[in-house]
């Protein structure tokens, strides 16, 4: 297993220049994600238009894998419905933890760049942290009422 399978160019690029890396004061949903093992801390912000994700951003600090994964997430789920985003979460979960037999990696677009993480079990949580955080944000119905 080559290190370049983990730190692919697209991962390195998204770590150096994370997209949608900003706080969103008027977010409809937000959630904090924390990986105590390595100290990664992310906040994911979501602005909804009905059941569609109109805008999404993240903020915080973490390793290259967690930052790049969060950056790629924001690009992938913007404009998607909540159900579509959850479908992507499920596919990503499979991509990161199981053989990708049965998953069309090309359909995942840039997210497919994270497939190398599977070979580094200690790093799977880094890549999945942002997805769990998005999932928590989308399901925190309580926060909707505080808008």
């Amino acid at each position, binding site marked *: *297993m080559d*290190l370049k399978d*983990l*730190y692919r160019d697209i991962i*390195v690029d998204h*770590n*150096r220049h994370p997209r949608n890396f900003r706080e969103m004061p008027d977010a409809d949903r937000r959630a904090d994600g924390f990986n*105590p*093992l*390595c*100290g*990664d*801390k992310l906040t994911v912000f979501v602005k909804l238009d009905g059941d569609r994700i109109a805008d999404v951003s993240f903020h915080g*600090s*973490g*390793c*290259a*894998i967690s930052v790049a994964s969060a950056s790629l997430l924001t690009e992938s789920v913007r404009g998607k419905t909540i159900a579509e985003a959850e479908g992507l979460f499920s596919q990503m979960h499979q991509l990161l933890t199981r053989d990708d037999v049965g998953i069309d990696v090309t359909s995942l677009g840039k997210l497919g760049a994270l497939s190398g993480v599977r070979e*580094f079990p*200690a*790093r799977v949580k*880094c890549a999945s942290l942002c997805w769990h955080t998005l999932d928590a944000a989308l399901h925190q119905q309580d926060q909707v009422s505080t808008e």
Partner: protein
Amino acid sequence: MSAVQAAAGDAGALDVVAIRRDFPVLARTVRGVPLAYLDNAASSQRPRAVIDAMSHYYETSHANVHRGVHTLSQEATDLFEGAREKVRHFINARSTKEVIFVRGTTEAINLVAQSYGRPAFSPGDEILISWLEHHANIVPWQMLCQQTGATLRVAPITRSGEVDFDAFAALLSPRTKLVALAHVSNALGTVIPVHRFITAAKARGVPVLLDGAQAVPHMKVDVQALDCDFYAFSGHKMCGPTGIGVLYGRESLLNAMPPWQGGGDMILAVSFDKTVYNGLPYKFEAGTPDIAGAIGLGAAIDYLEALGMERIAAAEHALLEYANEKLANVPGLRFVGTAPEKAAVVSFTIDKVHPHDLGTILDHEGVAIRTGHHCAMPVMEFYGLPATARASFAFYNTRAEIDRLVEALHTAREMLG
């Protein structure tokens, strides 16, 4: 010929080539390259002598201790108690009654918290620790505070990673019932000048516990010279097995403390009306102990003493100085913890490369270091860091391994910086 045999009669430096032959794991490769094991503060490796002592015990003499009249039980007891005497001599305790076998440093500290602190402390009492403690010297006291209403006080540290003595002294008061300090910081490597702290505590009649997990493997520890009341350490950080450690306690204090756990071996007589507890040290050793672990620890002590703790300390200090010099030339590298007195531990960060990525990239080069918060989250918070990378050296490490560490850091910077 093992390194120990080679060392006998040689007053000079250690023969690292011979020493490395004593440690089977050092010959292995990781991802196709030779292992450079620089994570000794987390756990050290074992020499063949330790592995053999444990195997030999299981192959020839295992039975339960302190119980049977048969030959094997007697042999096991002799080996187990022989290991206790080796520990006593190693730390210069007055008596084997003061040497309690536990699972490790963490259990030793919990034992003191629950047996010494819990029956005696009450609201208004204070326990004084420092900001650079390992979680194992924080959490047991927090639990004790919840149980008794006592208060945990924390002496601050300086930017260089030293415990601020004046602030510590100012926190000592008639309310202070116990001082619990690291002897050597696991996260930063700082050697705390504990004599000064102990003297200040003793002047107020406050007992002192030292967390010696990082000190015992790297320097000569003499509990009588230190004049501490409790001293806790682990076997696995000093070339011994996991699952075995030691609590040294001053006999008068241990005598006054109630047992912590109840069960076999810690009793003299049991009836449903009344149980008579065993004497020291068995009062604190309920259940069948880690016999093989204690024997392995005894073998580790034999190994370290044959090399000589002074020579081990000198070899590790030379590695530390070499690493400091080489690492200082890595662009973007910042040392975390720069106390003048340090064990062979270097904590650092590299600009634009997260420690977690460093750990993965270095592993790819066969270089094993620790990355993360090092079970000392308050220290990380003090420096405003989520994590650091930490290289920690043992006497079996080489300058060539440090060169490989430095080379791998350059690779990481090129890749991600």
